């Protein structure tokens, strides 16, 4: 787990909010790839070249938005699959978790699968909720801002984001909460 905030290139595409389901934009252009995300540089080349895409698949570019009623699956079945996905990190599509921020009127939802590491996730949260997270250190938690990103794990405990390896975090995170103020300062400071 990287301790520095912006070690990787900013993957803006990953944090961009779109109406489409995550995974479609990046994966659909690379028919021979596995589900792992490619580095941003390759993706930008593929997406900017519709001819290459067509030559590979021999079809019109796949639709980016979900078509109403397609594929023809009943709602209760779709909902059931979605619930399954939220409880099983092994399945291929997104892990959606709710994100709340103290003081914000409504919650958001993000797909953890979109991010490859903590810096990406934290940057996305900063953009989504328009705030700044401090500098992380194991000893002192997030220093330098009044916010602390926390998550609820499988056991129902509230943990500070960043302490465990990323993969472990992804499979145990049930929801996120950005704590503010005195509650936030309490975390990671010898509590």
């Amino acid at each position, binding site marked *: 787990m990287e301790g520095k905030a912006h070690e990787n290139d900013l993957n803006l595409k990953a944090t961009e909010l779109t109406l489409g389901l995550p995974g479609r934009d990046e994966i659909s252009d690379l028919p021979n790839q596995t589900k792992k995300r490619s580095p941003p540089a390759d993706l930008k080349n593929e997406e900017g070249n519709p001819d290459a895409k067509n030559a590979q698949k021999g*079809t019109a570019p796949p639709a980016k938005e979900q078509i109403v009623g397609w594929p023809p699956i009943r709602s209760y079945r779709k909902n059931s699959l979605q619930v399954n996905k939220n409880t099983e990190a092994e399945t*291929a599509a997104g892990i959606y978790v709710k994100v709340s921020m103290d003081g914000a009127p409504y919650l958001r939802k993000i797909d953890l699968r979109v991010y490859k590491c903590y810096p990406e996730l934290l940057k996305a949260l900063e953009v989504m909720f328009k705030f700044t997270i401090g500098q992380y250190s194991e000893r002192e938690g997030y220093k330098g801002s009044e916010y602390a990103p926390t998550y609820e794990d499988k056991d129902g405990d509230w943990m500070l984001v960043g302490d465990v390896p990323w993969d472990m975090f992804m499979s145990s995170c049930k929801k996120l909460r950005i704590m503010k103020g005195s509650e936030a300062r309490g975390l990671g400071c010898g509590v």
Partner: protein
Amino acid sequence: MPKRANSFPEEVLEYVFSFIQTDQDRSSISTVCKSWYEIERWCRRRIFIGNCYAVSPRMLIRRFPDVRSIELKGKPHFADFNLVPEGWGGYVYPWIAAMASAYPWLEEIKLKRMVVTDETLELIAKSFKNMKLLVLSSCEGFSTDGLAAIAANCRNLRELDLHESDVEDLSGHWLSHFPDTYTSLVSLNIACLGSELSFSALERLVARCPNLRSLRLNRSVPLDRLANLLRLAPRLTDLGTGAYSAEWRPDVFAILSRAISGCKELKSLSGFWDVVPSYLPAIYSICPGLTSLNLSYATIQSPALVKLVSQCPNLQRLWVLDYIEDVGLDALAESCKDLRELRVFPSDPFVVEPNVSLTEQGLISVSEGCPKLHSVLYFCRQMSNDALITIARNQPNFTCFRLCIIEPKIPDYLTLQPFDVGFGAIVENCKNLRRLSVSGLLTDQAFDYIGTYGKKLEMLSIAFAGDSDLGLHHILSGCDNLRKLEIRDCPFGDKALLANAAKLETMRSLWMSSCSVSYGACKLLGQRLPRLNVEVIDERGHPESRPENSPVEKLYIYRSVAGPRFDMPGFVWTMDEDSALRVT
């Protein structure tokens, strides 16, 4: 005209007629002569109405004064995929209200895709003392309060089936409304309910109903409760588990296994939400007796699925997710020689790239290995004409073939050609095909084949296919037995419809959405064919506010002797004789 005396007294004829069950046969005998019509209508007990707007309650009651069992269907099939806007119709209350006074001895009500309110359920509970069977399939509009009224009042209820309905779950306590004296339950399907049930009420209910044979629980019933229930109902033939998950404990497993193996008559299993694979072996003991297995919610991977199906040699019906993969379908083809129906659902339908290794090969294997397979629903991401030709050759006995290639308009992945010849082979070889759903890239030629060979076809579903009106024309002019046609996002328009207008009166219904049928053509159809209801469904506002040649959003045409309906919402208009003259 001189009256002829009947050769047989009425009672004898009635007795003879009682052996004639199907609607078509009953209809035929009623046309023999006036006295047979009269006798038949007085002794008809079962009624099936495939489109609730095709006839009115009053007409039904006038002709058939003593009905005991009624089946009604409401919304068009594409409502299942959210293509029919909320509020379109399908209200059952007027039917129940009319039948409450006319048919006090009504025993069975089966509804599909209808809007059922709590008020309706309360009226049913109050009006029909002999109610034995209530099936609400894919219905909506009611809550657990309505169910409480049924539970409290229907003393003779044998079967309550909420099959895939959308129920507002207010509380799990409705089950407690079955009185302690109520013991007649034979079949209970509450799998669609979202919230927690009152487990003690459920257990007490199961304990006091010795004739219980079918029990489909909902997801909230945990695995550790299942063993208890099974011990109370060892004669079950059909079980839907709740969530099939619990922390692994050998003692829990042992108890569950024993309880399941005690149900020696189990033929059908379903449920299996949230499966913890280590608990699967608990069902192995009854697998040899299984004829029907629904694993379509079970997110278990191919190896576990293979292990399971290879122990079910008598399986006739399998519903499963595409986690089964080609290798699992190969195993299925090896082990389950009695397989009649297969449905493979997509585990990840909204992603373009495959997440599992399920291809056309799986379908080829089962079509080759399972000689009795006649009904298939198959979601996959790649297909080839060669595969379809092979499948058609392997299995000419298909009666229902529904293929959904997930990405619209993609071609044969080997040749990059449309699937015209592939589906052509299906309709040509499968001479008993009654239901067909097509997908992938298709030209008008595909529909030429379907019109030429699909002579027994009764229901056809088309999406994102065809080039022009010619495609629709081939179908309407060729498929002699077509009853239901549903089309979305195809370039079919006025010419084909108007040229084949008379055909529409021989069908139950036609649905077209996001096609190219103009408002003007709809008005013409409504004008020319008074025995059809031509409904224009358009949420953009009245079609008069747009040019005549502008295409309507959605079109639903159905034959009816009841005339236009009066319960339409603001975005539905019926084109009738006057519509061409009406201003707004």
